[in-house]
């Protein structure tokens, strides 16, 4: 269970190589074992240059997919995971775990402790999940609070030292690199016994516990007879516990009001020490009924020093917070649009912001717009072929607003406009962006009084809630729209 090498590569489309290796680290002792274990199927780790080229080719990130290339485009070259085989130096380097996120490619090669021919299934390779954790860990570290390139460079410069701490010989010791950074800084502290490895020091100061619940609501609305709208709430509970002592115990209970929507699909942080079986089994896979467990959801844990996600959940609320329809009809070089949005009465009508973005893909720039809005204002981004309807902080008393208009487009210029593979022809969407503070759609809350802390001193407890939209789409009901199986199934159930 170890890694042979790890790379960070920035994806730079348009440059000659289309990318640069920003960081790489090899583990020769692991490589030595790979040579023994893999036997005749052993392929050595290439140097950075050839690796970069082969990886970008395989990930289709080179700017040259004009021609059919069998080794990449053949119908039998099927990749169903983020694990690839790269053609380097006459052999195929496999398994290469790699993914692209925020223009950075994260890649590493785990040790496979057997021959590679025939390829063993990924599930049997212990190093695979470690590869993912390492890459996710680096990703979290690089993007936590990172604002610009300078900060990114600073963090990239810290990586060699951090990996020397967190992964000295290729076997990952801690995926939380921030923790490793702290442990370098904490080095002089004398450690008491039974110090958890995921907690490098102890907190000294005023005890306080902060809990924030962030719910994201996503939705797909079609306004069609035969396709059901879908929506889902995804919650994340983030905690920061500043408590003295090595292993303070904390229990946080999440509660629901009487009409609240049960929490499902609960995933907890590894520091949670025990879980009620009702929490473990409450799942969106099952049909909902009244007997569903509706809390309180108790999470006993020993907190790490840093802020962490205590748990994630999903929930199926009875109605979407904003229900709408979007109709778009093409008439030669212009389109006619009608939008209607209705805020559900049960939802808190007090937004930090609320706007609807209406993009027009695979068309030229907007040359002319005529429109009428019943509420809010419309901003036109001509070059981006985008309309933004700014709704503001509140819906009007009627809770219902509408927009109608005609948009005219200029000639399409291929270079500037990126190709969208979904919004072709009449297929189009508008996307809602909103945020409501001190509110959750499920009703879920953490009661200050229900937080139990077994540590010296009475901590100050603060709780926060917010609801934000994420992937909240309303599709043009006058054209086909991409659907999920759930949308079809629900209709059948309802009929």
């Amino acid at each position: 269970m170890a890694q042979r090498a790890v790379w960070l590569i920035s994806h730079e489309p348009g440059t000659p190589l289309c990318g640069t290796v920003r960081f790489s680290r090899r583990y020769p002792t692991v490589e030595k074992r790979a040579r023994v274990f893999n036997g005749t199927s052993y392929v050595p780790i290439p140097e950075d240059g050839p690796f970069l080229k082969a990886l970008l080719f395989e990930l289709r990130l080179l700017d040259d997919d004009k021609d059919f290339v069998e080794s990449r485009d053949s119908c039998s070259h099927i990749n169903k995971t983020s694990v690839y085989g790269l053609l380097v130096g006459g052999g195929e380097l496999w398994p290469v775990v790699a993914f692209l996120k925020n223009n950075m490619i994260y890649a590493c090669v785990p040790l496979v402790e057997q021959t590679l021919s025939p390829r063993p299934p990924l599930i049997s390779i212990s190093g695979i999940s470690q590869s993912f954790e390492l890459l996710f860990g680096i990703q979290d570290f690089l993007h936590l609070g990172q604002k610009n390139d300078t900060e990114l460079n600073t963090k990239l410069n810290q990586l060699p030292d951090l990996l020397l701490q967190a992964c000295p010989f290729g076997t990952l010791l801690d995926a939380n690199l921030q923790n490793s950074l702290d442990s370098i800084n904490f080095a002089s502290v004398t450690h008491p016994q039974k110090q958890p490895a995921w907690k490098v020091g102890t907190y000294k100061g005023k005890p306080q516990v902060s809990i924030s619940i962030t719910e994201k609501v996503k939705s797909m609305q079609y306004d069609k007879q035969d396709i059901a709208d879908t929506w889902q709430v995804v919650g994340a509970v983030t905690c920061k516990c500043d408590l003295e002592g090595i292993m303070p115990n904390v229990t946080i209970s999440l509660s629901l009001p009487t009409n609240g929507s049960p929490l499902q699909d609960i995933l907890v942080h590894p520091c949670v020490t025990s879980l009620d079986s009702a929490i473990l089994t409450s799942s969106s896979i099952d049909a909902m009924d009244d007997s569903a467990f509706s809390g309180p959801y108790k999470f006993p844990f020993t907190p790490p020093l840093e802020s962490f996600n205590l748990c994630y959940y999903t929930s199926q609320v009875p109605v979407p917070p904003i229900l709408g329809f979007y109709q778009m009809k093409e008439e030669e070089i212009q389109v006619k649009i009608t939008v209607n949005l209705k805020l559900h009465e049960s939802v808190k009508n007090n937004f930090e912001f609320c706007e609807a973005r209406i993009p027009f893909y695979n068309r030229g720039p907007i040359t002319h717009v005529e429109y009428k809005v019943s509420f809010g204002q419309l901003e036109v981004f001509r070059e981006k072929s985008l309309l933004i309807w700014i709704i503001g902080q509140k819906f009007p008393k009627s809770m219902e607003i509408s927009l109608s208009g005609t948009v005219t487009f200029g000639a399409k210029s291929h270079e500037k406009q990126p190709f969208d593979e979904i919004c072709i022809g009449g297929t189009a969407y508008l996307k809602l962006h909103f945020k409501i503070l001190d509110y959750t759609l499920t009703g879920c809350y953490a009661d200050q009084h229900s937080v139990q802390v077994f540590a010296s001193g009475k901590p100050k407890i603060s709780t926060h809630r917010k609801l934000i939209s994420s992937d909240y789409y309303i599709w043009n009901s006058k054209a086909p729209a991409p659907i999920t199986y759930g949308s079809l199934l629900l209709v059948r159930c309802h009929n």
Partner: protein
Amino acid sequence: MGPLSRETWAQRLGAFRASPSAFMAGPEGEDLGRDLLNELRSEKLSEQTKVSLLALSLEYPAQLWPDAAAAEAAATSLLDTLVLLPPRPSALRRPLLLAATTALAAGNALGPTSGASRRLLPLLLGLASGRDLGRGFGPASEQRPLQATACECLRELESCKPGLLGGCLGLLRSLLGQEGPVQPLSLLLALALRNTLVIQARARAGLQGLLVAGDMPAAGGPWNWTLAEEGDANLQPQAPSWPAAEEEECGLAVLEPSPEEARELRAAVAQLLDTSYLLTPVAQAQLLWLLGWALRGLRGQPPVLFKPQLVRLLGTAQLTLLHAVLALKAAFGEALFTAQDEALLLRRLTLAAQHPALPLPAHLFYLHCLLNFPENWPLGPTGEETAPLLLGPRLCRGLLPSLLHDPSALLAHLHLLCLLCAEDEEKEEKGQDWCPRHYLGELLAGLRQRAALHGGPRALATLCFQASYLVVHCLATQPTVLTPLTHGLARLYRARPALAPHFVDLLDRVGPELGEPLRTALRQEVVSRPGRDEALRWHLQILSKVADGKAPSATLGFLRAAAAHCTDWGLQQALLQVCRALLRAGVGEGLADLLQALARHLEDPDGRDHARLYYILLAHLAGPKLGVALGPSLAAPALTSSLVAENQGFAAVLMVQEAPAPMRLSVGPRRAAGPVPVLQLQVEVLEPLYSVELRFRVEGQLYAPLGAVHVPCLLPGRPCRPLHLPLQPRRPAPAQLAVRALFATPAGLTCHAHLPPLPVNFADLFLPFPRAPDGDKQGFFEELWDSCLPEGAESRLWCPLGPQGLEALVARHLDPFVVVAQPPTSYHVAIRLPPASRLLLRLEAAQGDGVPVALRTDDWAVLPLAGDYLRGLSAAV
């Protein structure tokens, strides 16, 4: 080289990292390793620069110190640097330990004879056990991190040399029980324990109290390498390659610990598991993999020890932890997971595979785990991806593909959908509205729609064809899926003929279930719209793939119409390619007219020549022969360029093909007569061969060039007369003959094969002297004998005799050359060695086990050959 500045080093390291091989090949390469070690002791460089030098040595020890001796020297130097550090805090101690460990482990220097190993191991163990190593070992504040580092170094050494710490298990246990750092010690103990168990099981030895015994090896005392030497032969996977698959490999079942040992083992494992919550999630996962393997198959060690950990682990979203649980599931099956547990695990996995809070790569990995789920009672064939029995359509609802997915996500989910469709076959008949199969159809239609977009990225087209391939692969027996797929693909071609290469690729890879109907549909699609078309070259590419004997008149009609538009060389070649396909398919009527027309009217002379050749072939060759003549070439079966493929096919008719040797050639009995030595060759063939020509080449020009041997026909099972190969030696010496065979196969191809080289032995060159005058054989022999000296050489040697004695030996090997014989004790032998040498032997006064031989020759060079020959005679009987 003198001391380098920080900047110079930064530059040098940068250049090295950009391309280590290029740097090492350059002028500075050789010195880098040595300079690096020297600079570590320089007082001018900052600690930070030194750390970066050490970091380089951690990554590239094999480049810096390419052999074991250099690695040993480097490790020694690093250790020297370490002990020379002043006793104040320093950032160098930790990387120095890591670097010394890396140099030894990666450089193959670790072992009982290595001085550096003998220094490093006790040092690491001392540090790991928190012993006070005295003033030289830095301030107290560094002890704790160094203790952890020492554990990591030991673990790496144990990984590379299993069994190294077998003698320290007891010590590690007691350290873990005391105040030692939990995570490094736990992982070290678990690894050492697992390795020890494996090595002892292989050696069929018990634990021999290893778990309880073991104090510190005395400082300076010898390290116990016994177990490491045993383990050395088999580097052990730290985690099992999937347990179920290689039950025997692991071989732990043979280890039967005594009740007392079993108790100690259980206690050690429980000790590790009880404190496992103090480990980071990734470390916990490692511990579980290691212990899971250690206990698997070990009698008297029920896996219930793991049970208390499972609920906690199942609740988390951590990839490594869930993966480790799956490993335990695979290792212990029902012994650890009841049917209900299995269902719960499956549900958690299903949930994780779609949970919106987890990233896409994790989803895809979980989906892979679902399709490879280690079921308690698997029904399907092993090694194939299948949906577990408990994973019904209901559980899968959220896991089905959607057009909004990324390509790899779409394919992964599509695979699951296909598996469901395959299972759902019977239920489907009852007619449901939105069954998975309808959904599949809709999805594929959506993919084709996107692929049809002109100017769309190739990735979209590729995805569409990959999805189609996957569907055919899983659902080849379901016409309700394949028929709409075929029609859909034909429509896609109509909409975007530029996808022709994808279609050709698909046709190459799918079976006849889709291949046959798709060929027909595409052919109809193409020929139904003749005339000038931007897409003509794509049409021709498709036709060359799909044209067969069916409905040839439509195809020919299309070609006739197309010929007028084939103005450039490429198009003409593509057109001819289709004609070639028709020729192969046995289309005759109409094609001849077309070819004649093409031979007259094509603008390009190359095209006209081709057309004419095809016409001639069509007119003169019978069907099957035509098929072979135009069939795919043996030499280059897969070439993407249609033009190259065309030429290759042609080459099959007009050129000689390389083929594996279809015959065996051996040297038969000698025929010592005539003016020159002649080899008698015996031939056996595996298949009928015609017009065989055997060509020989002498290596080293020892003989004059050899003529070829011709045989009109060779048939398997039918004996062939020996073939005679006269040799014309330039020197009387043995040689190797390289042999090549040219022949025609029954299929009409001319082939060429290399046969194994044929040895010509020294004795193969022997010829007798012309018959001596009657009556004075002795005088004749003596004359020859005397003539050898003084220019020649004389020797005496002992020729060992086998049980048959001298008479039999002479009869067998030397009979044709005997001039004077007094059986059974004395023989005079005269051998002529072309071109102009002689070898004379006197075998006299034989004894029981051998005969003294006096030999003379007029050629010095023959002497050693003759000696070897005579000494080898008895063995050759």
